[in-house]
């Protein structure tokens, strides 16, 4: 494995982690952009599978996705590097802040900075979601398109537990795949 690969793994996750405010689903689109679009180390579908695995495991989704990316690209050492890259920025920042947190919390300039960055983060996620959604629709698989819309409605409007959605969609996908396979077998027999 090239030395450069390790360095890129660490610094990519470090930068992304340092600039992502908010929950795990904020960092995931950025990871996808870096590793799928820029570096082309992982393909789109595999990335989505990784996110699904990360979401189904306990812990922080950002850390879990990083582990999977590192493991896939460079094995156990790669995973160790991406964990470090993801964990270090919040670790350093929080250690510093915890010593003078009241001043930080009430500082208006920091508030303005964060408010501006929030709009930028929203733009980044919107861009990634529209291109990912377009990819799903382009597959021309009605079931996938319906699943996507239904899952969004359930999570966003009805606040359904994410774990339930993951289980339901996984089951649905498994059933559909077995049905397709059986149909194909029957056609072959006839």
């Amino acid at each position, binding site marked *: 494995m090239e030395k450069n690969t390790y360095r890129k793994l660490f610094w990519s996750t470090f930068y992304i982690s340092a600039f992502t405010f908010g929950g795990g689903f904020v960092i995931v689109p950025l990871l996808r952009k870096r590793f799928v679009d820029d570096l082309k180390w992982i393909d789109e579908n595999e990335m989505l599978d990784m996110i699904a695995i990360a979401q189904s495991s306990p812990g922080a989704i950002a850390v879990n996705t990083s582990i999977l990316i590192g493991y896939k690209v460079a094995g156990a050492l790669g995973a160790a590097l991406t964990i470090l890259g993801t964990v270090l*920025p919040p670790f350093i920042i929080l250690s510093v802040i915890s010593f003078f947190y009241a001043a930080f919390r009430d500082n208006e300039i920091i508030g303005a900075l964060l408010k501006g960055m929030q709009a930028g983060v929203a733009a980044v996620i919107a861009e990634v979601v529209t291109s990912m959604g377009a990819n799903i629709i382009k597959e021309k698989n009605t079931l996938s398109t319906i699943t996507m819309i239904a899952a969004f409605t359930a999570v966003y409007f009805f606040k359904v537990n*994410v774990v339930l959605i993951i289980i339901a*969609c996984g089951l649905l996908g498994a059933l559909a795949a077995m049905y397709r396979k059986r149909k194909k077998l029957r056609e072959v027999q006839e």
Partner: protein
Amino acid sequence: MIHIMLFWNFFQIGLFSVGGGYAAIPLIQSRIVQINNWLTMTEFTDLITIAEMTPGPIAINSATFVGTHVAGIAGAVVSTLGFVLPACIIVMTLAFFYYKYKDLTVVEGIMSGLRPAVVALIGSAGATILLLALWGEGAAGFNLSGLNYQSVSLFAVGFFVLKKFKPNPIYVILGSGAVGVIGWLFNNLAV
């Protein structure tokens, strides 16, 4: 002894927080505030505010904050390690099975069912952040008066630039932050 306690408590938080960031908050609260009295409820609320204002997963932020508070930097290190370890073991195990069996019809089917769901989950998180960014906290609905025009312009320009020029997203985020600060300075320092 306190280090082992920190490690063990965050190990349990890491093991049982399924479903991402916010799902971990009640668990952290019960372990840190109620059971071990490592933080008061006010300190805990401050922690959540800070965790939302700073980058990184809420649980990692909490582990660092609580660890530093209770036992200095060493405390922060063991707490963070404790939180990450269970995820590491479970994710690697799942990854092992995924790469071994991903060509099986059932596994392939499960994954193809999950892909659109994952896009939907990211979309939902994106919509929440978008509303928060454009209207601010506790927005009543889509009323035009509460709209923050600076955020709307930043969002629109950022989205356009990303689609058109495909820059590194971090520059868009940093640029928006800089405009936020300039806007504040302009409003507060201009006579």
